[in-house]
């Protein structure tokens, strides 16, 4: 009986020794809870077309086109700009540029794209592709654009009757996921 008690105590001692934290790894734990609300979004950027004028701010959503000093007859036509003289009525400068539209976190097969002049211009004619752009309302350029890169041609028609001087305007584009 005494021996059994001693044996029990010994086993208990060993068990306590072996199971003690000295033989276990010392650890600490913590948590970092993360929350984000992902919203769908559409990207619209302008990129210089290989066959078009070099855009200022290419690859951004705020591009610029500077035709420089141009004239109906003679003068220098910027690289990748086409000048067309229409009889003795008007002349037109045109150049392609790329519109890149991408969508994220939304199932969308296509997009609509509209354009509108920022400032009214009753004298010159502004076109994107075949669509005439005014400041009165947004003009639809496409109702089912394919995501990715699409080339559009900007056309600026200047009447012969217009006085020489600077022409400035801004075209506001809006792409909306369908």
């Amino acid at each position: 009986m005494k021996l059994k008690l001693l044996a029990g105590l010994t086993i208990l001692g060993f068990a306590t020794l072996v199971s003690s934290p000295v033989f276990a790894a010392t650890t600490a734990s913590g948590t970092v809870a993360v929350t984000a609300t992902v919203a769908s979004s559409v990207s619209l950027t302008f990129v210089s077309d290989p066959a078009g004028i070099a855009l200022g701010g290419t690859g951004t959503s705020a591009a610029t086109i500077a035709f420089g000093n141009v004239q109906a007859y003679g003068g220098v036509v910027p690289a990748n700009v086409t000048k067309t003289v229409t009889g003795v009525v008007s002349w037109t400068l045109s150049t392609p540029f790329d519109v890149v539209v991408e969508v994220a976190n939304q199932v969308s097969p296509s997009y609509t794209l509209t354009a509108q002049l920022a400032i009214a211009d009753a004298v010159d004619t502004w076109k994107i592709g075949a669509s005439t752009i005014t400041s009165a309302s947004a003009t639809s350029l496409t109702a089912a654009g394919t995501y990715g890169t699409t080339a559009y041609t900007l056309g600026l028609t200047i009447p012969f009757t217009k006085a020489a001087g600077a022409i400035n305007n801004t075209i506001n584009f809006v792409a909306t996921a369908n």
Partner: protein
Amino acid sequence: MKEQLRQNRIGHDATVLLSSHKMPKHLWIIAMVLALALLSVASATAASLTLTFRTDPSGIALGGSGTAAATINFGSVHAYGGVVPAGVTKSVNGTTTWTLSTPIEVKVTKTGLGTSVNYTMTAQLQSSGLTYTWKLGSATLTSAFPAMVTAAGVYGSKTAYTFSLTIPFSAAAGTVNNTLDIIVTAN
């Protein structure tokens, strides 16, 4: 007094008086084992690690900064446009994925672990988040098993680890929630 007593000092605190004549040999062994066990328990109680998360000067403001239970709330975020929270970097990877990343500070201190020179840190997601890619430092996290973040963390220093969440363009809009379980172990 015939009984000869020997004083045997064990460790720093325990003093055991042993009788060399009356105490049988096996009782000595038992006594030693029990004493060692008691000592080991007593000394181990004092050994501990403390893990806290803090807002990094260049990172997003953590909820619960200075505690072991921090929160990161990115708010409403967009791949294109929108507002990126202060201390968060957004990068758009082509038309495939986009990533939010921010540094967080981790501080680990030790008590009673004189021989431990550094620590390992692992992290694991509580919920499966296969749609997204979760990273802490260079370790990609899953819920399947703990990923090694560092094998030799430095005690006492505020170490910045960059947390990143990569979201595929193909993922539906909505709320992303998960929790990182982080464990540090003394080496």
